[in-house]
């Protein structure tokens, strides 16, 4: 079965962590089989036609079954592995209120017993632990109480597939397999301190928004509470104090008192509850690993959105154990994944695979079935939100906003602190708040761990804000568009943190567009007509408008663009592709600079960029300005070497690194090659100016000179031995860092903090002597400007607005809500590939429909942690659930010269949520404050 060759030389050399050298291995591809699998020849010829992608970069593999996902890897597929495939099964606890006493394996026949049972004792004896990010108790010790539902107890290893399957079927749901002792109440989680707490306070200056705020998180800085048990103890309020916390608490208390007493204000005081959600990416998590003792190498195949994290953390785990002291190499296959939605970002799963590999006697596969994925996979956080929103009764302007947000983080901390922070800072939605006090805290619980699922906290809080605006308009008897126009942010307004959003704010323009739409204009007539024709149903229209942040405040994308002597354009990027089309968009956007799309795109190139020799030494979110200023002088230092891939990161951040790699490739490779050719043809140097050169039909043109084919330029560049590949790294803390670089002769400023180049095959010995081990020359930066660390307190400055309007029909007998049609308005900035944006809009809408109407996991022992959940009980939206024939959208055109591409994969799922809630209200006259709204809820309400 080893039908293609791969040797150790094909692995890409990596960093060394504690004596373990980390390599990344190339992914499996079967493009030849894809072409042969019954696609039309014309289809297979080229994905890029007439200057734009005809379809996705990897579409042919995906429509022929030849796309290889992480779950597809078997030992037999991987060169240098034995063909034998062993299998692992993680035993998890389905309860969290009893003492764990061990396993009873006598319930399965002797001939299908596992050959190894890995327990907490094995881990302890061999000093094997989880990386600190994931916490402790990787496997629960006998005699202890599970920290959470689904706590991992043991790993069973089997050497035969049939035995493994039979044993797993018998054991997974067997009541007596896991032995428990006394019941223990309360849950262990209730004794643990909060994961995080945040406070966002702002009071506008008496002189208005343009003046310096009287107080803001951005200006005064962040402060944090003490934890007393699970309660928060904030600083004591003191208006005269110079301490940010004491002063802030005075401002906060004053607002809370006024909201409760000011009679000229209308205050909407509401509580909202959101649910735990299963990301339900269709590919459950999987792992394959092989500990090759002969070559002292651990090979692993992982399904993750954050392979860079695994590289670092797994290396450290291996480096500290006596059991693994023989391991000198870690080879990581990080293949394409079948959906992520955040659930494969910093997931704990692959570390269990690593442990299984260490104890297995052959390659071992660990793969969650759907029940296991429900039980153990990362979830979307449930939010409990108490909001008070105060309006001036005459002007309708918001006067103040107070919010108390309690978040359930589940069993392990994971990304709960940042999800809570993002949720808090997103609370304001599209509205300007002159005064606000938002406190948000996240508690551990015995539920499965929640992580960075799509929406990242903002779905929960922004949907609540829009539900408030709809209710406020109704209560104040004003048009909901009028109320929104009175409060929508405009250019110059500050966010709740006191920072100014970047770019042009077009909220009012979007409101104007939506208000004119027939769904809205004809809603009364349509309702009368529909209700008359459908006496068993009731019609309603609603809309929601949100503006989702994107960016992390420490984005650090890397990219490579280069040419081969044969004339191929190669792009390599840091990001992982999860279905959003990152590979297609990155391949396409380079054509703006180099006249054609990339011939190949290599994704998830995590360690390739070590060639830039960058290092980091501190947390970019909390480092001091002094430290940053000092370290910026070191040309190899950056605040962050890498950042995680997520759906909203590629369009803006990854594109930035890619397009500058392409831009420099044009300046240093393609144009100089053309100039050489034109000079050889007798051209005058003063007439060959880079600004006048243009790409036309894949040729570089200049008035008065013969056009030159791209492939010829590549050949020439290699022959000349000039730059033929460019690698870039950038850093963004709500602004791009920029530096001065001299790649060839001219000092130029780029919004980058590192550039490395490679040279053509004709490069001189002198040039070759300057190259590092990876074959690149790092261009020394001659000055560097990083965004001030104060911008960390901005918490967010990039936003993508999105408005969705929806028509629903509520069935009066069944309570079922039917989506009739929807229209979405989005401001995506510059669009690289229109079809990809359309796909995100449609997909987001569907996931939002799931959140508002269907998807629910109980926040107790009956929830997913009990291991009994699959999609027979958990309703994922099907095509029929989102009005699939009647989805429409409007993309606002970008403002030329201002707009870059915006992150949008998450925002599109949010406004449909409050839109549907409002439409149900319009249909039933009943308001709901919890999600999802089920048919039973509706029937109860309209009884």
């Amino acid at each position, binding site marked *: *079965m080893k039908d293609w060759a791969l040797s150790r030389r094909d692995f890409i050399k990596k960093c060394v962590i504690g004596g373990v050298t980390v390599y990344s291995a190339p992914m499996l591809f079967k493009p030849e*089989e894809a072409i042969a*699998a*019954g*696609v*039309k020849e014309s*289809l297979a010829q080229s994905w890029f036609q007439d200057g734009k992608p*005809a*379809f*996705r970069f*990897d*579409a*042919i593999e*995906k*429509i*022929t*079954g*030849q796309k*290889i*996902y992480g779950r*597809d890897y*078997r030992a*037999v*597929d991987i060169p240098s592995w034995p063909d034998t495939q062993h299998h692992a099964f993680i035993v998890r606890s389905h309860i969290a209120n009893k003492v764990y006493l061990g396993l009873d394996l006598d319930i399965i026949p002797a001939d299908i017993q596992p050959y190894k049972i890995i327990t907490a004792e094995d881990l302890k004896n061999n000093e094997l632990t989880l990386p600190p990010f994931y916490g402790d108790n990787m496997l629960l010790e006998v005699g202890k109480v599970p920290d959470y539902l689904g706590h991992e107890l043991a790993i069973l290893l089997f050497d035969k597939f*049939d035995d493994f*399957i039979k044993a797993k079927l018998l054991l997974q749901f067997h009541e007596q397999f896991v032995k428990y002792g006394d019941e223990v109440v309360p849950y262990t989680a209730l004794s643990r301190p909060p994961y995080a707490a945040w406070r966002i306070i702002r009071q506008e200056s008496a002189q208005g928004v343009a003046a310096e705020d009287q107080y803001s998180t951005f200006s005064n800085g962040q402060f944090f509470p003490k934890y007393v048990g699970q309660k928060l103890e904030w600083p004591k309020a003191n208006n005269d104090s110079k301490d940010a916390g004491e002063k802030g608490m005075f401002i906060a208390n004053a607002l809370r008192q006024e909201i409760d007493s000011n009679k000229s204000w209308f205050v909407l005081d509401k509580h909202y509850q959101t649910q735990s959600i299963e*990301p*339900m*990416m*269709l*590919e459950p998590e999987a792992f394959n690993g092989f500990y090759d003792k002969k070559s002292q190498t651990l090979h692993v195949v992982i399904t993750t959105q954050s392979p860079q994290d695994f590289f670092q953390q797994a290396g450290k785990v291996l480096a500290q154990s006596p059991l693994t002291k023989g391991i000198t190499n870690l080879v990581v296959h990080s293949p394409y*994944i*079948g*959906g*992520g939605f955040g659930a494969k970002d910093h997931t704990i799963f692959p570390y269990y695979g690593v442990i299984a590999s260490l104890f297995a006697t052959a390659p071992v596969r660990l*793969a969650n*079935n*759907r029940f296991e994925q429900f039980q153990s996979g990362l979830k979307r956080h449930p939010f409990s939100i108490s909001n008070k929103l105060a309006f001036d009764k005459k002007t309708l302007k918001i006067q103040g906003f107070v919010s108390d947000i309690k978040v359930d983080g589940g069993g392990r901390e994971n990304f709960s602190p940042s999800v809570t922070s993002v949720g808090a800072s997103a609370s304001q939605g599209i509205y300007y708040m002159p005064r606000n006090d938002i406190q948000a805290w996240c508690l551990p619980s015995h539920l499965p761990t929640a992580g960075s699922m799509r929406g990242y906290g903002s779905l929960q809080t922004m949907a609540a804000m829009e539900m408030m605006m709809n209710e406020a308009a109704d209560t104040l008897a004003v048009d909901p568009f009028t109320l929104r126009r009175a409060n929508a942010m405009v250019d110059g307004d500050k966010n709740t943190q006191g920072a100014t959003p970047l770019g042009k704010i077009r909220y009012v323009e979007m409101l104007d567009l939506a208000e004119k739409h027939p769904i809205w204009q004809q809603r009364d007539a349509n309702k009368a007509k529909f209700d008359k024709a459908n006496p068993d149903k009731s019609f309603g229209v609603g809309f929601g408008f949100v503006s989702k942040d994107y960016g992390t405040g420490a984005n650090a994308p890397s990219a490579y663009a280069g040419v081969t002597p044969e004339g191929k354009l190669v792009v390599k990027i840091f990001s992982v592709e*999860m*279905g*959003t*089309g990152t590979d297609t968009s990155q391949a396409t956007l380079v054509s703006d600079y180099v006249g054609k799309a990339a011939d190949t795109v290599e994704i998830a190139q995590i360690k390739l960029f070590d060639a830039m020799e960058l290092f980091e030494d501190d947390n970019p979110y909390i480092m001091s300005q002094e430290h940053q200023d000092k370290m910026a002088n070191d040309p190899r230092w950056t605040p962050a070497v890498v950042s995680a891939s997520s759906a909203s990161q590629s369009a803006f951040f990854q594109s930035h690194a890619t397009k500058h790699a392409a831009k420099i490739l044009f300046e240093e490779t393609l144009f100089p090659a053309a100039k050489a050719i034109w000079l050889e043809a007798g051209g005058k140097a003063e007439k060959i100016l880079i600004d006048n050169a243009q790409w036309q039909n894949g040729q570089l043109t200049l008035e008065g000179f013969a056009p030159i084919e791209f492939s010829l330029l590549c050949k020439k560049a290699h022959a000349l031995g000039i730059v033929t590949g460019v690698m870039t790294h950038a850093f963004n803390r709500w602004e791009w860092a920029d530096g001065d670089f001299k790649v060839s002769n001219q000092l130029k400023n780029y919004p980058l903090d590192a550039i490395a180049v490679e040279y053509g095959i004709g490069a001189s010995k002198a040039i070759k002597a300057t190259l590092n081990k990876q074959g690149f020359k790092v261009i020394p930066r001659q000055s560097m400007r990083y965004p001030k660390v104060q911008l960390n307190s901005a918490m967010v400055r990039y936003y993508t607005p999105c408005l969705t309007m929806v028509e629903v029909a509520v069935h009066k007998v069944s309570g079922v809500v039917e989506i009739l049609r929807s229209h979405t308005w989005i401001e995506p900035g510059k669009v690289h590939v229109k079809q*990809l944006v*359309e*796909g995100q809009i*449609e*997909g987001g809408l*569907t*996931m939002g429909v799931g959140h508002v109407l269907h998807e629910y996991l109980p926040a107790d022992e009956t929830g997913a942690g009990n291991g009994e959940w*699959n*999609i*027979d009980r958990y309703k*994922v*939206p*099907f*095509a*029929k659930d*989102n009005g*699939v*024939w009647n989805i429409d959208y409007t993309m606002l055109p970008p403002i030329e010269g201002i707009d870059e591409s915006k992150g949008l994969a998450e925002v599109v799922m949010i406004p449909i949520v409050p839109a549907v809630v409002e439409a149900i209200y319009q249909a039933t006259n009943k308001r709901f404050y919890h999600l999802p709204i089920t048919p039973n809820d509706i029937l109860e309400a309209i009884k």
Partner: protein
Amino acid sequence: MTISTQTLLVNGKNFTINADPNMPVLWALRDIIGLSGTKFGCGSGLCGACTIHVDGAPMRGCLTSLKQVVGKQVTTIEGVEAAQLRAKWAEYNVPQCGYCQAGQIMSAAALLATTPTPTDGQIDEAMAGNICRCGTYPRIKAAIKAAATENAEA
């Protein structure tokens, strides 16, 4: 529940395998024969990711046992004749993560094989059991409709 030698006819080829006759076809395809295009999604016949054709009819590979397909023609995404459908799938940019798409195409191909020019309602019905978590439903339907339109014009 004993392992026995069986012959499986997949995509026109005979495969001789040693397996429990109760083993789901999906496992045999992926773990024994090595055809990984058919995907595991839920293991309970609820998501459609493992859709195969048995004598041309769409079946869930995770719920169909080896003994149920003895002497029958099993077709997977790797072998299904659906060039026109695939072309529309590419043209309409249907796949996002792509993991469910084999199952979607198999359901759509089965529909068009029996109903070359389906109505919207027939498309809805035929595709009702296939989940796409990326939410590519509008494009799936548009691609099927486009392929059906070409059928009608042919």
